[in-house]
C-alpha cells in the first residue's frame, strides 16, 4: 500500500524498484522531458535485447540473423503484393484483437479470440452450405452469414462472462478452455458430418459457392472484409469513447465496487462487453472464411486468436493502437513461409518475435498503473 502512495501520478517507469532509483524517477517525472527520454531509452533498450535474443535463436539454427531480419522486413514492406497479403491476414487479427480490448475496458481478460474466430467460421459455413444454398443472391447470403458468425461468437464468449459473473470462474481460464473445445468441435464437424466427399486425407468442408464469398475490391486480391474490419475498428473506437455504454465499461473496469454503488448494472455490462467482443471475433472468423479461405479447414485460424491477444496488449487496448499493432503482427506473420523456404527455419519462428515484441513493454512496465 505504501508503495502505491509513493508513486507519481504520471505513468513513469523507474528503471528498478529500489528506493534510491525510485526517488530519482520521481524527480525525473517533474521534468516532463526527462521522463519521455527515460521511457524512450528503456523501450529502445528492451527491443534491442529482444532482437538480440531472436538473433541468437536464429543463429543457433544455423541461419544468418541479419539475413532473417532483412527477409522479415522485406516481406513486410518491400515485396510486391505483400501489402495485400498483410491486409488480408490482418482482417481476423484486428477483429480478434478488438474482441480482447472491449472486455478489457470492463476489466475482463478475454483470451477467447481463437474460439470466437473458430465458432464464427463454423456458423458462417453452416449458414452458407446448409441454409442459404447456391441460388440465393449474395446481397442476402453474406449478411446472413455475418449475422450467424456474430451471434455464434457472441453467445460462445458470453458463456465465459456468465460463468465469471455468477460462479466467479476466472474468465482467462474459461476462455482458454473454451478455445480447445471450439477446436475439437471444428475437427468433429470436418471429420464427420461436414467432410467433403471424395476428398484426400486433408479433411475439409465443401468449398463455398460464389454467392457466399466476399466480393473483391481494388483489383482481384483484396476483398470487402478489409473494409469491414477497418469500419469495425472505427466503430469500436466510437463505441468505447463516445457512448455511455463505453463510459460505463470504463467505470466498471476502473472500480467495480464504485460502479455498482453508482447504480451501474455491473453484471450486465460485463456480460455485454464479452458478448460484443465475441461477436467481433465471430465476424472475423466469418470474414476470413468467406474472403480468404473459401472453405472450412482444420487449423484454419492458425493461432490468429492468440496473436490478436498479444496485439491487443501491445496496442494498450486502444482500438486504433490495437489495429496498428494487428497490422504490424500480420506483417511479421506473413514472412513465415519465406523464412521456411530460404533458411529452413520452422514457420513458428515468427511466434518468437511476436511474443518478444509484447514481452519488451511488459518487462519495462514496472509500477505503471492501468491506462484507464
Amino acid at each position, binding site marked *: 500500500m505504501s508503495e502505491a502512495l509513493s508513486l507519481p501520478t504520471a505513468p513513469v517507469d523507474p528503471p528498478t524498484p529500489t528506493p534510491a532509483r525510485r526517488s530519482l524517477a520521481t524527480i525525473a517525472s517533474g521534468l516532463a522531458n526527462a521522463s519521455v527520454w527515460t521511457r524512450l531509452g528503456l523501450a529502445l533498450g528492451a527491443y534491442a535485447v529482444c532482437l538480440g535474443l531472436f538473433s541468437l535463436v536464429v543463429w543457433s539454427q544455423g541461419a544468418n540473423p541479419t539475413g532473417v531480419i532483412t527477409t522479415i522486413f522485406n516481406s513486410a514492406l518491400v515485396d510486391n503484393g505483400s501489402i495485400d497479403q498483410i491486409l488480408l491476414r490482418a482482417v481476423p487479427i484486428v477483429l480478434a484483437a478488438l474482441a480482447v480490448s472491449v472486455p478489457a475496458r470492463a476489466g475482463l481478460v478475454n483470451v477467447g479470440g481463437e474460439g470466437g474466430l473458430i465458432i464464427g467460421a463454423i456458423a458462417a459455413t453452416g449458414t452458407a452450405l446448409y441454409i442459404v444454398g447456391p441460388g440465393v443472391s449474395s446481397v442476402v447470403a453474406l449478411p446472413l452469414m455475418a449475422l450467424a458468425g456474430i451471434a455464434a461468437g457472441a453467445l460462445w464468449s458470453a458463456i465465459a462472462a456468465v460463468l465469471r459473473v455468477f460462479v466467479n470462474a476466472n474468465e482467462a481460464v474459461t476462455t482458454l478452455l473454451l478455445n480447445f473445445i471450439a477446436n475439437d468441435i471444428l475437427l468433429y464437424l470436418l471429420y464427420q458430418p461436414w467432410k467433403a466427399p471424395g476428398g484426400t486425407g486433408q479433411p475439409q468442408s465443401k468449398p463455398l459457392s460464389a454467392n457466399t464469398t466476399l466480393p473483391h475490391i481494388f483489383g482481384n486480391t483484396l476483398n470487402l472484409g478489409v473494409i469491414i474490419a477497418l469500419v469495425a475498428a472505427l466503430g469500436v473506437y466510437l463505441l468505447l469513447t463516445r457512448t455511455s455504454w463505453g463510459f460505463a465499461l470504463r467505470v466498471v473496469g476502473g472500480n467495480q465496487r464504485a460502479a455498482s454503488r453508482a447504480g451501474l448494472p455491473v453484471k450486465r455490462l460485463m456480460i455485454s462487453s464479452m458478448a460484443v467482443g465475441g461477436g467481433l471475433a465471430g465476424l472475423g472468423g466469418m470474414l476470413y472464411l468467406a474472403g480468404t479461405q473459401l472453405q472450412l479447414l482444420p487449423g484454419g485460424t492458425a493461432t490468429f486468436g492468440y496473436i490478436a491477444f498479444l496485439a491487443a496488449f501491445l496496442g494498450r487496448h486502444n482500438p486504433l493502437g490495437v489495429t496498428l499493432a494487428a497490422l504490424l503482427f500480420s506483417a511479421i506473420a506473413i514472412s513465415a513461409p519465406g523464412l521456411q523456404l530460404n533458411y529452413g527455419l520452422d514457420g513458428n519462428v515468427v511466434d518468437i518475435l511476436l511474443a518478444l515484441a509484447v514481452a519488451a513493454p*511488459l518487462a519495462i512496465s514496472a509500477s505503471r498503473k492501468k491506462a484507464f
Partner: protein
Amino acid sequence: MNGIEQTLISGVEGGTIILYPALGELIGERAGIVNLGTEGCMLAGALAAYAAAATTGSAWVGVLAGMAAGGLVSLVHAWMVVKRKADQLASGLVLWFLVIGLTSVLGASFVSSIVTPLPIVRVPLLGSIPWLGDILFDHDPLVYASYVLVGAVWWMLYRTRAGLVLRASGERPEVVAVAGRRPDRVQIAAVTIGGTLAGIGGAQLSVGYVDSWFDNMTNGYGFIAVAVVLFAVWRPLLVLAGSYLFGIALAAASVLQAHNVAINQYLLDALPYLVTLVALVAFARRGGARTPEGLARALNNTS
C-alpha cells in the same frame, strides 16, 4: 482387464501429468502469483526432457532437464510480475507463446528421435494388492514421487514456518515485509519452484506417457492445471482429486476409442476440457472468500 480398470490405470498415469504442474501452480498462487505460463513451462519441460533423454539415452537426465527448463521459464515470469510489476495474466500468456515458438524451432530436429522412456516399476508388496495394486502401484517412479509430493506440499504449507511466510506473502505482502522478510523473494522462489514442478509434468508427458515429441504437445494441459487449482480452492488434497479427475477424462476418451465406441474421436478429445469447465462451474463459487487476497487482486484485475 476390463475397461474401467484400464481407465483408472491410465487415469493415474495421465493425472500425474496434471498433478505436478497443478501442485506447482498451487504453491505459486498461495504466494499470490498466477502463472498462465504453466502451459509454457510444461511445453518447455516436455521438449527439454525429450531432447536430453534422446541425446544422453537416460530418461532421468531428461527429467532433470525438464525441471531446469520449466524453472527457467517461470523465473522469467516471476521477474516480470514481481520485479517489473507486469500484468500477471498477460505475462504468462506471452511466455507461453514465446515457448510455443521456441520449442517448434528447437524441437524440429527431435520429432523423429527415439528415447528409452521412464521404466515401469511395480512396487513390491503394495503392487501385489489385487486391483488397487494395478491401479496405484504399477507405474513409472515419477507417479510414486507425486504421491509423496502431495503430502510434502501439504506439510510445507500448513506445518512449517516457510509455508506460513509463503501464505502470508499471498495474502498481505506488506505484513511479511513489516515482519522483516522479503515477500518479493518468497514470491519469486514460489513461482520458480512451481515452474520446476510444471517441467516435471512436461517430462512425465514426453518421456513417461506418450514417449514422443511433437509441436505443442501439451495441448492446453497447463491451462487445465491452473483450472484444477482454482476449483480445488488451493487445497493440495483436492488438487490431487482434480488432477485424477482430469486424468480419468483423458483416459476415458482413449479407452472408449480403443473399444470402438461409436462416438467421434474429436468430441471425445473435448471431454477433458469440458469436465474441467464443469468442475470449475460446480466448485469455483466456493473459492470466493478462500482466494488468497493478493491473488484475488491479480485475478479480478483490480489493484
